[in-house]
């Protein structure tokens, strides 16, 4: 009776233990765990449009087989990664994949700061350095080291409902391609696009969509950067508390004031909430990544939104004597910290291949290439975006690594939420932000002041 119970239990435990343990290959190849994303290889973006498309996962399997053929010492184990939190948990539990996709806005540089990610500098060739846009490479820089293999870059742009502008008679005020425009013109357009369509006495279309929830700080910082505001300066260190920042913040407050041109409640909106309002034609303009136009196409194709003409434009500048500057949201591939140099080299080989021109030829010909050698796309909107990508700047990068317990993106998000949702004087908010930055971010930081 006892044996009947004990033996199956022990067998069960052994089976569970075996299934939970890390699998090993029966050959001598180095196995690399690669966390892929379901969109990688998505036919409309990645595959030759003249050939019949195959499912993305099948396409991925073909690319992985190519890597294994080209590097016979590497075996790639692919898993599909559902998103950022899983990566965070994997780092915390020491089960991180060797190679993984990241959006640079999802805390990846904090992981680099904490030492979770391998620098790529010794694997970057001179040709890579010459070809990849400096601003794109810079997004993954910390101090003198780079951590990310760039796969695509979307410059932050103003998305404009061109059809609505025509309806309201302001299409003539819009800039042509990447031609700059100033905040006064932007405001004029925004005012024209704010109106009561159904005649119930309340505005139901707004000129601008602002949002400050969920890592939206690059959006606000891009508005401010076009007023000349910066967070850091190579010579003086932290320069956020400046007249330029204050002027930019006053502009943002002017947009979001009650009864003004922005949808009220910016602090409660995320980017995708605003994108939904934009494609539902409730908002005439919003600052976002150019990639949102792809989201819009899906909305149109699935019938969730009525199609309309959309135009991309540079972020407006405070004064036309200063060129518009944009910020890049870069998608990249990274390699987690490796103890074994051979394994590290193998993982880097895979990362390099995933982001190489040979794999991304079709993707880059249409869309967001991080390399100079890719010709500009034919689509005028994408051409505008690529021109802006070329003159973008990483104005969020601290010149030295900050205290890991100070989360600059989070603090910036909270700062902008405070600006939008309270009537705290701008000077006070800036002074308090600076005081906390100096007290917390610079704790134990070497090399500061610069």
């Amino acid at each position: 009776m006892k044996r009947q119970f004990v033996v199956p239990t022990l067998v069960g435990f052994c089976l569970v233990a075996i299934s939970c343990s890390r699998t090993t290959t029966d050959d001598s190849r180095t196995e690399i765990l690669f966390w892929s994303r379901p969109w990688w290889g998505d036919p409309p973006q990645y595959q030759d449009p003249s050939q019949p498309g195959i499912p993305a996962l099948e396409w991925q399997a073909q690319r992985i087989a190519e890597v294994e053929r080209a590097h016979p010492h590497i075996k790639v184990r692919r898993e599909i990664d559902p998103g950022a939190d899983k990566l965070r948990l994997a780092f915390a539990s020491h089960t991180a994949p060797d190679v993984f996709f990241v959006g640079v806005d999802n805390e990846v540089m904090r992981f680099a700061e904490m030492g979770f990610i391998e620098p790529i500098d010794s694997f970057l060739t001179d040709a890579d350095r010459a070809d990849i846009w400096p601003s794109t490479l810079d997004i993954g820089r910390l101090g003198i080291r780079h951590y990310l293999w760039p796969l695509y870059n979307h410059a932050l742009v103003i998305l404009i409902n061109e059809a609505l502008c025509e309806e309201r008679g302001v299409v003539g005020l819009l800039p042509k391609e990447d031609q700059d425009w100033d905040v006064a013109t932007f405001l004029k357009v925004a005012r024209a696009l704010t109106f009561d369509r159904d005649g119930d006495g309340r505005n139901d279309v707004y000129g601008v969509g602002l949002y400050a929830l969920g890592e939206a700080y690059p959006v606000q910082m891009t508005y401010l950067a076009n007023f000349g505001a910066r967070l850091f300066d190579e010579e003086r260190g932290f320069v956020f508390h400046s007249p330029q920042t204050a002027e930019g913040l006053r502009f943002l407050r002017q947009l979001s004031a009650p009864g003004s041109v922005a949808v009220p409640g910016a602090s409660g909106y995320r980017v995708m909430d605003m994108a939904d309002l934009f494609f539902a034609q409730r908002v005439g303009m919003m600052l976002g990544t150019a990639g949102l136009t792809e989201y819009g196409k899906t909305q149109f194709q699935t019938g969730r939104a009525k199609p309309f003409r959309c135009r991309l434009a540079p972020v407006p500048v405070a004064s036309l004597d200063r060129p518009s500057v944009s910020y890049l949201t870069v998608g990249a591939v990274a390699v987690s910290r490796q103890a074994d140099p051979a394994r590290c080299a193998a993982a880097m080989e895979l990362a390099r291949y995933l982001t190489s021109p040979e794999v991304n030829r079709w993707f880059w010909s249409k869309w967001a290439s991080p390399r100079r050698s890719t010709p500009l796309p034919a689509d005028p909107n994408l051409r505008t975006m690529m021109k802006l990508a070329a003159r973008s700047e990483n104005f969020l990068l601290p010149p030295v690594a900050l205290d890991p317990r100070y989360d600059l993106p989070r603090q910036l998000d909270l700062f902008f939420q405070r600006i939008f949702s309270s009537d705290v004087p701008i000077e006070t908010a800036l002074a308090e932000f600076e005081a906390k930055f100096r007290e917390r971010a610079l704790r134990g930081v070497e090399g500061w002041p610069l």
Partner: protein
Amino acid sequence: MKSRIDWTAYGFVAPALLILALAHAYPILKLCVLSVQETDVLRGTAHWCGLANFSGLLADEHLWTSVRNTLVYSLGVVPGILLVSLALAFACQPFAARWQRFMRAALYLPGVVSVVVTAMVWTRVYDPQFGLLNRTLAWLGVNGPTWLGDPRWALSAIVIMSIFTALGTPFILFLTAINGVPKEYYEASEIDGAGPGRTFLAVTLPLIRPTLLYLLIILTIGSFQVFSAVYVMTEGGPNYATFTAVYMVYEEAFRYFDFGRASALSVILMAALALLALAQFRWLSSEVEY
């Protein structure tokens, strides 16, 4: 005479005890150990740091913000759910069984849906311009606030959502408890000339007190653990207006990878909840005799 221990009985209980120990006792012990350690996630090292995590937390202004928000949330949600579900149960009690079944299903179903889904739907409901709530308020001539974008309203918005999505279980338990009160007591109360209010206070409420106590404790514990709704709807914002204790635990652990501080905060939370449950139990528990 020395009694003989029946090991067979212990054998039957053992698997359940083992699962309980693995699933609850071990994590709690590990939590207590981590709370007095300084951990380095990257190197996988941990060393004793005494009460430094606790003192660091107590000096952190955000701890007090999170405690205040959690208490406000709890004080809104627990009485809110109890009052609304009790009122609904009381109102439904005279109805026929099939209507009661319908109400049970109607109120229980929202609780089956994941909090993440519910929170996403309510985010749309709260949209200041185009959401159902403000549209309805506008129709009534009221200018609705920017719910999730205004620090004065964001926590209230989460409280309201939590009340309306958690009514199912309390409603069913209250209805069952009310239906379980012997009819003779109501007849006696009627003969004595008591009105509906007096009958409720003198007959129904004392006799459903065990259910009330159970729900009070369970809901209080649940309200102190609020996380998913905050994570999905506001991420603790705007400007820390919905920053709750468990959200802070999450941030300490998975944003800053400071498992020592996260564990210390969890220990504080666990102790506070245990004391609160004990106090509620002592205050409300008493034998109920029909």
